[in-house]
């Protein structure tokens, strides 16, 4: 604290305070303002949705992605990314991004689904791109699990691990755990390739294939996933198994050994 007070007369102190204040008001505004507007436009037509989306965009996104989605040095152009990309990025809370870093992590979504749809409608109007998938696409009946598994191991497991537990990439980037990703968002991620993930357009991985992959993923990694052998220890493979074998396996055996070798209590001398 002493250091802080000593520096308050520094020439740049006023600038720092100003920046903090701006960031705080801006943050408060982005957090609160859109929520109020959301109530106004239930059931709006698509052109209305685009208008509303544009308003939301101007407030919450334009500072990084530029007016009209042209992109700036802080954020890529959004022309042609499609509604699916917006639905994924905003719906999983990745956008608006909180701070720069190796990768923008997912967090609590800032916008309601209705607002997300308006934003998506606006971005989709900027240029043609993948639209938000429907339930028949991401959750088809009679999905082929075996096909999904093969495709998952060919296209996804290298980054996300066998059962989609996630994995590390270079320099602090990572492929996230897929356990709690909704089917729709999983579909959109494959379709649009968010951040450093490559995209798997329908020409590479068909719509049906994506449905199969999602069905397989949910079979092996969800709250309902069966682990016949018992607790899965995170599903990270030999590293967690080895650690467990040492700490719990050998640890409990050593504890038993201590009991076996210990002297039996002697009778108290009276």
């Amino acid at each position, binding site marked *: 604290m002493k250091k802080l007070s000593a520096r308050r007369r520094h020439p740049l102190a006023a600038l720092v305070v100003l920046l903090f204040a701006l960031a705080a008001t801006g943050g408060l505004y982005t957090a609160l303002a859109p929520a109020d507007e959301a109530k106004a436009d239930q059931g709006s037509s698509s052109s209305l949705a685009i208008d509303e989306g544009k308003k939301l965009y101007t407030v919450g996104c334009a500072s990084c992605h530029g007016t009209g989605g042209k992109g700036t040095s802080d954020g890529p152009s959004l022309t042609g990314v499609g509604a699916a990309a917006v639905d994924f990025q905003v719906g999983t809370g990745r956008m608006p991004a909180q701070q720069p870093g190796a990768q923008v992590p997912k967090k609590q979504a800032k916008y309601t689904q209705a607002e997300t749809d308006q934003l998506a409608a606006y971005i989709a109007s900027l240029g043609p791109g993948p639209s938000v998938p429907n339930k028949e696409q991401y959750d088809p009946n009679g999905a082929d699990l075996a096909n999904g598994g093969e*495709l998952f191991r*060919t*296209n996804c497991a*290298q*980054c996300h691990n066998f059962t989609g537990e996630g*994995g590390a*990439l*270079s320099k602090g*980037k990572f*492929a996230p755990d897929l356990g709690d990703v909704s089917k729709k968002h999983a579909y959109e991620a494959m379709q649009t*390739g968010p*951040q*450093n*993930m*490559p*995209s*798997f*357009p329908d*020409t*590479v*991985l*068909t719509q049906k*294939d994506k449905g199969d992959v999602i069905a397989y993923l949910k079979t092996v990694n969800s709250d*309902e*996933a*069966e*682990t*016949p*052998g*018992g*607790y*899965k220890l995170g599903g990270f493979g030999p590293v967690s198994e080895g650690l467990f074998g040492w700490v719990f396996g050998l640890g409990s055996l050593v504890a038993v050994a201590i*009991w*076996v070798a*210990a*002297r*039996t*209590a*002697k*009778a108290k*001398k009276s």
Partner: protein
Amino acid sequence: MSSETGSHGTGSDEIVPENEKLPGEHGHQGHSVAVLDEDPFADPGLPPHEHRVQDIDERAARRSERTVALLFTVSMLATVAFIASYVAFPIDKIVYVWPLGHVSALNLSLGLSLGMALFCIGAAAVHWARTLMSDVEIADERHPIEAEPEVKQKVLADFRQGAEESQLGRRKLVRHTMLGALTLLPLSGLVLLRDLGPLPGTKMRHTAWKKGKLLINENTNEPLKPEDIVVGSLAFAKPEGLEREDHDFATEIAKAALMLVRIEPDDIKDKRSLDWSHEGILAYSKICTHVGCPVSLYEQQTHHVLCPCHQSTFDLSDGARVLFGPAGHPLPQLKISVNKDGYLEAQGDFAEPVGPAFWERG
């Protein structure tokens, strides 16, 4: 020469050894140090035996006996439970058990009952040993392992006599030919190993790729067109004519596996790489040049591809140059173009061997 002190029997520690002293000798011998009347650190001998409760109180002993018997009984019941579980639970029955998750009822019940049956036998035996069997400590004498000098002399004499009688030292011809025969003999065993596998030849320099072979999408099994692959996407391809059911599929795909990405031509730094691409579609070998894992952790914004096995990182926008990790050379690139029907095709085989480096690679 080193020596040691500290034979606690006399308490004459820290005695300067003579320079020629053998390490085995104790420091105090041959020195006239005043012998202390009493060594405070002397070995007091085994402490007197103290009784356990079970040794003096028959009721406590009976309690121990009952505990042991109870453990054996629990083991018997657990074995019955094991058999019952084996019969009762269908193999595909899944139950939710907190905190384990959705686990196989059979595996859980068999394992726990078997574990209990075994553990209780062990616990019973140990409890029995600890509380009821005698716990009087006994000292057993050790005897030096080295033989007495007389024994050693006898053995050496016997050996000399035996060696003499064999005439091995005298009959040099016998000795030399015997050694020769025994040395040559293992060669037949070595020769027999020849048919373990074929000679390398040039096998590792060729893959299933040839000029005009279409690039087949691994996912759809359909030939790929340039427009299928957009910037930022990742696709895997195998050569036309190689099917999963083929006898040598694994061996062929282990060399031919291909990774396709599209990068804006302006972003491609390597000139040759750009020439070998088709409008920015780059076809790289998927097999890591380190030890052969399929590299395919593609970061589409940085154009880096990472190997999951040992983290070798390649820059696909710069001729797959190695950026980090233990790989020694870039991923080989396959020269591709488009045929008259508009499908992607190979312009030939890889120009260099794919996969891990080897001595003859050059």
